C-alpha cells in the first residue's frame, strides 16, 4: 500500500495548502481592515504597507462616534433592521404556513404566480414606489424604508417548504380539541417552525442591514441615514483618511459577521432552500 499512500500524502499537503492560501485571500481584506482601523492617521500609507499597527489606538472609532455621527447611523441601522425583521416574520411565516397547510381557492395558482414574480428585479418597482411614498408623505421616513421588506416571495417560499413537513394529524388533533385556526397556528404550528423562523429572521436582518440602494433613495436626511448610506457618503468626503474609513467599515461589518458566525447553521439552511427553487 505504500505506493498508494505516498501520493495521497503529497496531494493531501497540496489540497490543504491550496485551501490555506484561498482562505487567506478570502479573510485577508477583513483582517487588514481590522488592523488598519487601530492605526494612527496616515500610518497605513507607507510602502510596503504595514501589517500591524505600531501602537494600537482607538482614536478613529472615537472620531467616528463623536464628531462624525456614525454612532447615530449605527443605532438607525439597528432599529431599521430589527423592525424589518419582526415585520418580515409576521407577514411571511403566516403566509408560508397558509400556502403549505391550509386549503383556499386558487392557492396553488397564486403560489405559482408568486414564484414567477421572482424573475422581476426589485429595482423595477423602485421608481413608482418612490412616487407612491411621496404621495403618502413617507419619503424620508423609516416607514418608507421598511415597506419593501414587509413580505417577500423568498420568505414565503422558505417557510412553505419547511411547513409542508408538519403532519396533518397534528393540526387535526388541535382542531378536534376545539382550537380555532389562530390558536392552532400560535400554539401548535409556530413551535414546530422555530428553526426556519430563525433562518428567516437572520436573512431579513442581514438583508436589511446590508441594503443600500433603497435607503439611499428614500432617506435624504443625515440624521436618519443607515450605516451603509452614511459610510458611502463619508468615504466620498474622507477618501484620504483610510484608517478612519476602515474603522467605519469595522463598525458596519462586525455585527453581521458575528451574527453569521453564531448562527451559521441556520444561514446555510436558507441558502439550500433558496437554491432548489429552479
Amino acid at each position: 500500500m505504500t505506493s498508494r499512500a505516498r501520493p495521497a500524502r503529497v496531494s493531501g499537503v497540496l489540497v490543504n495548502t491550496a485551501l490555506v492560501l484561498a482562505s487567506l485571500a478570502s479573510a485577508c481584506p477583513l483582517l487588514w481592515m481590522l488592523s488598519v482601523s487601530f492605526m494612527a492617521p496616515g500610518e497605513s500609507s507607507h510602502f510596503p504597507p504595514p501589517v500591524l499597527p505600531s501602537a494600537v489606538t482607538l482614536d478613529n472609532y472615537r472620531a467616528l462616534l463623536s464628531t462624525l455621527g456614525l454612532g447615530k447611523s449605527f443605532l438607525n441601522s439597528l432599529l431599521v433592521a430589527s423592525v424589518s425583521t419582526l415585520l418580515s416574520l409576521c407577514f411571511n411565516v403566516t403566509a408560508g404556513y397558509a400556502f403549505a397547510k391550509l386549503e383556499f381557492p386558487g392557492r396553488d395558482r397564486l403560489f405559482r404566480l408568486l414564484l414567477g414574480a421572482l424573475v422581476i428585479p426589485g429595482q423595477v418597482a423602485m421608481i413608482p414606489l418612490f412616487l407612491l411614498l411621496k404621495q403618502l408623505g413617507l419619503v424620508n421616513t423609516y416607514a418608507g424604508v421598511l415597506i419593501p421588506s414587509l413580505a417577500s416571495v423568498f420568505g414565503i417560499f422558505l417557510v412553505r417548504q419547511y411547513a409542508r413537513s408538519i403532519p396533518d394529524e397534528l393540526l387535526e388533533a388541535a382542531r378536534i380539541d376545539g382550537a380555532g385556526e389562530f390558536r392552532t397556528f400560535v400554539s401548535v404550528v409556530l413551535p414546530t417552525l422555530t428553526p426556519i423562523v430563525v433562518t428567516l429572521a437572520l436573512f431579513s436582518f442581514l438583508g436589511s442591514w446590508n441594503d443600500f440602494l433603497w435607503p439611499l433613495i428614500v432617506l435624504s436626511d443625515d440624521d436618519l441615514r443607515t450605516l451603509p448610506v452614511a459610510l458611502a457618503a463619508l468615504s466620498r468626503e474622507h477618501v484620504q483618511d483610510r484608517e478612519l474609513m476602515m474603522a467605519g467599515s469595522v463598525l458596519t461589518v462586525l455585527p453581521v459577521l458575528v451574527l453569521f458566525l453564531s448562527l451559521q447553521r441556520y444561514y446555510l439552511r436558507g441558502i439550500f432552500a433558496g437554491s432548489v427553487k429552479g
Partner: protein
Amino acid sequence: MIASRRGFWFAAPALLVITLFFAGPVCGAFLLSLTDFDIYALKGFEYLRFVGLRNYLELLHTSRFWRALGNTCYFVVLGVPLSLGASLGAALLLHSRLVRYKRLFRTALFAPVVTTLVAVSVIWIYLLHTRYGLLNYLLSALGAPSIDWLGDPAWAMPAIVLFAVWKNFGYNMVILLAALESIPETLYEAARIDGASPAQELRYVTLPALAPTLSLVGILTMAGYFQLFAEPYVMTQGGPLGSTTSVLYLMYEEGFKWWNLGMASAVAFVLFFLIFVVTRLQLWFARRSEDT
C-alpha cells in the same frame, strides 16, 4: 389538509403587501416609462405627457446607454465564469477527503458573502490603491509593474470583477459543495474499477453530476450580476471616463439625480427585459443539453 376559506386570511396580509408595493409599482413602472415624467411633473401631474415608446427610442440613440449596457455585459461576461470557476475550485478542494478543519476553511471562504457590500467596497478602494495598496504590493513582490486599478479606464472594470468574485464566490461554493456531497459514492467506485484516473473521474463523473446545479447557480449569478450598482457607486462613481457606469447606475442617475423618472423607468424595463431574455436562453440551453 383541511379545506377552509379561513386559510386565505393567513396569506392575505402578505399578498396585499406584495400587490400594493411590488406588483402595482411594476405595472406603474411600465406606464411611467411611456411618459415624459420629469422634475416638473413632481410638482404637479398636469405637466405629465404620454409619449409612447419615445423614451425607449431615445435610449437607443444615447451613447451613455450603450456604454452602460456594454459595461454591464463586460462585467457579466468576465465576472460570471470567474465567480463560478472560483466557487467550483473551492468546492472541489473542500470536498476532498484529505482536508482537515473543513468547517473552518468553509467559514473563512464564506465570510465575505455576509459582509456589507458598501463597507467591503470601501476596504477594496484601499487594497486597490496604486501606491499603498496590498494588491500592487503583491504585484511588485512578483516583479510586475503596479496598476492604477481604479484610475485607469481599462482596469477599473476588471478591478470591480476581482472584487465581486472575492465577495460572492462563497455563496455558490456551499451550494456546489452540497451537490458534490450528494453524488453517490458507487459512481466513483465504478469509475475506479474501470481504471479511471482522478482527472477522468472529475471529467466523466463529477462534472456531469454537477451540471444541473452548475447551470442553476450560473443563471442566478448572471441575473444578480446584471444588477451591478453599489460597487461602482462606492468605488469609482461610475468612472473613470464612464468605464464602470452600469445600467442600474444609469437608472439611478437618470431617476434620482436628474429626476427624469419616465426615462429611468424605461432603463429599468430594458434591464428587466435583458435579464429575462438571457435567463430564458440559458434555461433553454440547459434543457437542450440535458435532453441530448
